[in-house]
């Protein structure tokens, strides 16, 4: 057994390779384009039925401690001086909410029944592009909530009754104008 270490290394490599193959086989395989098409179709159907949520992404800490009042002016929820710290807070993982024109707050949540979950500021959300955006310069086909603070967004997803007037929304897809990473 002079070569036991090579056998061990080979077995470890095969083990990892197998686990990837097994997961791949288990996953229901749709191409990226097919998945995006389904997401877009669902979004536009929901938008036509008025089932999407349209509102401004607002930063929770400054809203709840009264440092900012994005609810007072839907068109311009933050002044230039307020927006920068609000974004810093959001990237430090304070919660981001969706505030609609009628004043309802939506708290982005994971899917119902998911008991261990992560902060919803982090995951990538598939982005639905408008026809004009598709024809223009290439944009990311996903977004996360932090760079969207202060921007109007339209989200599609299951809405939960929530608590104390604040509703939950499990965001499946999102639509917005511009490119938050580069817009000044």
């Amino acid at each position, binding site marked *: 057994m002079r070569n036991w270490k090579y056998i061990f*290394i080979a077995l*470890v*490599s095969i083990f*990892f*390779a197998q*686990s*990837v193959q097994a*997961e*791949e086989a288990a*996953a229901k395989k749709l*191409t*990226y384009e097919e998945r995006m098409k389904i997401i877009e179709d669902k979004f536009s159907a929901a938008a036509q039925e008025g089932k999407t949520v349209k509102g401004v992404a607002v930063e929770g800490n400054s809203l709840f401690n009264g440092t900012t009042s994005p609810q007072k002016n839907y068109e311009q929820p933050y002044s230039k001086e307020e927006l*920068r710290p609000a*974004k*810093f807070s*959001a*990237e430090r*993982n304070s919660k981001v909410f969706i505030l609609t024109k009628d004043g309802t707050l939506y708290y982005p949540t994971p899917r119902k029944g998911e008991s261990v979950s*992560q*902060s919803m*500021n*982090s995951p990538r959300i598939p982005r639905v592009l408008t026809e004009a955006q598709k024809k223009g*310069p*290439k944009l990311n086909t996903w977004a*996360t*909530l*932090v*760079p969207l*603070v202060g921007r109007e967004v339209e989200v599609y997803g299951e809405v939960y009754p929530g608590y104390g007037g604040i509703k939950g929304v499990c965001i499946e897809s999102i639509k917005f104008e511009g*490119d*938050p*990473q*580069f817009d000044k």
Partner: protein
Amino acid sequence: MAKQKIISLKSIFYTAVSLVWIFGLSAIGHIVMVLIEKNSPEIKFDFGKICFVVGFVTIYLTRFLKSDGWQSFVGILGGFGMWFSWEYSLMYAGERMGVTYAWNGSYPEYRMMQWSVIALVMVFTYLMYQESVRCNFIYFLRRKLRLMRGVVATGKIDNYGPRTAFEYIMVTWTFYVLLMIAYDEQLFGKESWFTYLVFFASFSVFFYLCYKLLGYDKFGANLKYSIPTVTILWNDVEILAKWGMLKEPWVHINWPIMSVIIGGFAVSTYLIINDLRKRKREAIESKDVI
């Protein structure tokens, strides 16, 4: 009188091939990550584990290689695999701890990597005083800062593989940390003077390093010194993308451009392997003559 540097056609060829190979490797690494994230995100962490095992085994295997060229070539691949696994481990940590994207678009794994800066400095401090380290930049610092009591390292290096892997990891780590510090809007910011400084300094140093690279005419040395050269150029690529002036073909999956890069990588891989095999044959034949 200043020494006249001899730049031969041969050294230009070795330099160009090495630069294309390292650049192609980095670009392919990026597009692989993007494609996994896009098409099969469920396998990404398993892929990271595989990269670790493959990287580790590859570095180990360099001990069986005799030539400096093969050791460096395989060592880079080993370092590349291990680097990949570190990025995936940080991605996993980011998900576990709920680290968000920055509002200027920086990814959670790199935001976390930024704060490994002190770990980086600690490792670098050790390297500055480690007698056997032959890095030109560290030599320069030792000389200028008068760090060493005695003479600097001499003697033969038996295996360049782990050294090259470590070089790849250290160089990549250093420049990621530097870029993340530059992009941090609470320190400098992507439009700050510091980012501009990094951009222009990287641009100038890239040409200087290319000139230095032209002094080598073997794949071992050329590949090793191409790592910092390409990584410094990569700073500019990253900064231009951050400014929105460049749509990286490996992020936005521009197949025509990627095909050229993958083609260049394939051709350069062929040329490197061909040359290393030829040198090996020549070495065996010359032994036979003796």
